[in-house]
């Protein structure tokens, strides 16, 4: 059941990804930066909030007036700030829920990833508490409605000796001091929110808390347009002696309020509490056995730190050497954080298929899908290849269905992630002419199942990140396919085009030519 929902959801998101990529481009696709957008909206709301706070008067009578003044007399700045504050907060709710839904549908909350999921749930409460608290400050009819309903809702809890709702029976009961308390809370809760957001990303290496500049500028521009076209307005001053009958709701923040009226406080408490609890335990529903985590082989590790630099989950650290060899450090895997993506193995300089004298055990490896076995599988798969334009496909197990590629002259091997494939394997396959070309089939760019796998792969192949694919390997014999369901190019089409290109290339020399940048002495030595 869960799998069906997730699979259907993944298809929907993949199509949306594609649509957004067409509109915004791959780099600025907002669906790839939902978490970063959450941070971005937080800062927009914080900055606009500070501006509003300067002019806000914390008293029953003056609060409404001060905001009206900002909205109308200083519409070109104060009004815009108010609208940015409002729409930025709404946008934060949107990206937060989209982010959560997406991570759920792609099943990215299991194993060690429970931490980010689990710490993300309280963020919902903090965002809602901040937002609802903010609506009180305006002290208009909506604020009155929210104040009364919230008080009634809270009164359901057995903590309060006296009903708080009584405070809102008449004007005299709402003191100026109460407004000071409200505005104090409206600073305090968002500060806790920020702290919780920081905790939320603690186990993410290279966490992206800033969207790409293009997306940031575009988003701000969109909010500004919204602010000018539909400025946020108050709904008439609060009058506590009358009951609010009709009021416009902010459906991003207040969808539960009509339910409190209709179903009663107890039911809504059960709904909120139940959903919160369900969300919190979701990473363990149903319980699944974890993949064995990466292990370090000290005789093969000199503490170079490449795995440490590439691990997307901060699961690898460098610790003081423990085996007496004269190295300063060694890689250490924290099993609590490792999700067995294998990206560390792909980065290890000793994970090369050219190694035959000693046992092919790299400095870091996955016990159940090790490099020795990958080499054996590579050699065996290529041995069966015949005909022109032989292609070896390394397919990431989370990407589009590489296993659908069944045709003569093509063989497919699955790897946990493209970045779990050491680049020297590509050198090995192409330069040792095991196959005529290598096709790498990975996740959508920006939607890598292991966050950074597609980025690292691209950078390693471009010679921008260690371990680099050797420059001598002809790049026209490599094709990278990023994509999932709903992508314009299907994998079989890419393969057909790639094979046509390979067929048109001159065969790699039996003896590869030497690079030009050699000293005459070496040139002589080579002859």
């Amino acid at each position, binding site marked *: 059941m869960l799998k069906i929902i997730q699979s259907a959801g993944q298809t929907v998101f993949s199509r949306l990804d594609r649509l957004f990529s067409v509109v915004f481009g791959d780099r600025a696709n907002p669906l790839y930066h939902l978490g970063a957008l959450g941070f971005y909206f937080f800062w927009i709301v914080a900055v606009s909030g500070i501006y509003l706070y300067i002019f806000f008067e914390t008293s029953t009578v003056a609060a409404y007036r001060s905001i009206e003044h900002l909205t109308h007399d200083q519409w070109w700045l104060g009004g815009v700030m108010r609208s940015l504050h409002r729409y930025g907060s709404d946008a934060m709710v949107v990206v937060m829920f989209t982010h959560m839904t997406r991570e759920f549908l792609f099943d990215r909350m299991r194993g060690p990833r429970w931490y980010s999921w689990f710490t993300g749930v309280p963020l919902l409460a903090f965002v809602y508490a901040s937002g609802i608290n903010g609506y009180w400050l305006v002290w208009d009819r909506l604020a009155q409605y929210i104040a009364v309903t919230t008080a009634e809702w809270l009164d359901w809890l057995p903590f309060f000796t006296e009903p708080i709702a009584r405070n809102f029976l008449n004007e005299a009961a709402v003191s100026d001091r109460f407004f000071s308390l409200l505005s104090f809370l409206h600073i305090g809760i968002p500060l806790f929110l920020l702290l919780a957001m920081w905790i939320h990303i603690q186990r993410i290496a290279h966490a992206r808390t800033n969207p790409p500049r293009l997306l940031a500028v575009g988003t701000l521009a969109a909010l500004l347009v919204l602010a000018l076209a539909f400025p946020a307005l108050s709904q008439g001053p609060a009058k506590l002696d009358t009951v609010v009958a009709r009021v416009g709701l902010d459906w991003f923040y207040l969808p539960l309020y009509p339910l409190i009226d209709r179903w009663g406080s107890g039911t809504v408490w059960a709904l909120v509490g139940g959903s919160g609890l369900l969300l919190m335990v979701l990473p363990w529903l149903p319980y699944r056995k974890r993949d064995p985590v990466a292990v370090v082989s000290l005789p093969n590790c*000199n503490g*170079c730190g490449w795995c440490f630099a590439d691990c997307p989950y901060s699961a690898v650290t460098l610790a003081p050497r423990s085996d007496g060899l*004269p190295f300063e450090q060694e890689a250490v895997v924290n099993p609590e954080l490792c999700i067995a993506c294998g990206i560390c193995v792909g980065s290890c*300089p000793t994970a090369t298929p050219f190694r035959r004298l000693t046992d092919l055990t790299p400095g870091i490896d996955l016990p159940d899908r090790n490099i020795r076995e990958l080499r054996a599988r590579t050699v065996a798969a290529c041995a069966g290849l015949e005909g022109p334009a032989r292609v070896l496909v390394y397919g990431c197990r989370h990407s589009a269905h590489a296993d659908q590629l069944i045709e003569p002259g093509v063989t497919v091997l699955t790897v946990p992630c493209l970045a779990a494939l050491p680049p020297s394997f590509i050198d090995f396959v192409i330069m*040792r002419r095991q196959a005529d070309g290598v096709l790498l089939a990975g996740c959508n760019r920006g939607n890598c199942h292991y966050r950074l796998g597609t980025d690292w792969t691209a950078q390693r192949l471009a010679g921008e990140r260690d371990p680099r694919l050797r420059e*001598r390997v002809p790049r026209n014999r490599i094709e990278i396919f990023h994509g999932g369901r709903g992508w314009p190019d299907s994998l079989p089409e890419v393969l057909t085009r790639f094979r046509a290109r390979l067929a048109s290339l001159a065969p790699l020399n039996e003896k*590869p030519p030497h690079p030009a940048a050699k000293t005459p002495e*070496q040139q002589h030595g*080579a002859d």
Partner: protein
Amino acid sequence: MALIDWDERFCVGIASVDYEHREMIRLINDLHEHFGGSDSVIEFLGEIYTRISAHFALEEKVMRERQYDQYADHKADHERLLDEIRDIMDDVEDRGSYQESVLADRLRSWFGDHFRTRDARLHRFLEGAGHG
């Protein structure tokens, strides 16, 4: 006879780097002693390629940590050397044979030149910076 003799001048003054330099030279000399069938040479070259890849990775880390002023140049030379040893490996494997003296010369200059120039410069830098 050793192909490359250890020379104290090869020390850069960092225990781990110097240890690997010695191991590297030992491995190249081992290979020299095992000159014979091309299979065993290919195996040795594969091992050298693996070890030198890891060694360069570590040396580059040391250089970055100590903010070595010629890091980019030194790193580029490492990349060139890695391409070159792969050339040597493919040459031997493709031909199925090799000339001992030519391979010995190639290995000596491949490793020795870098030692004499880039690594010596690094040594002077580290000493000057008080890390020697």
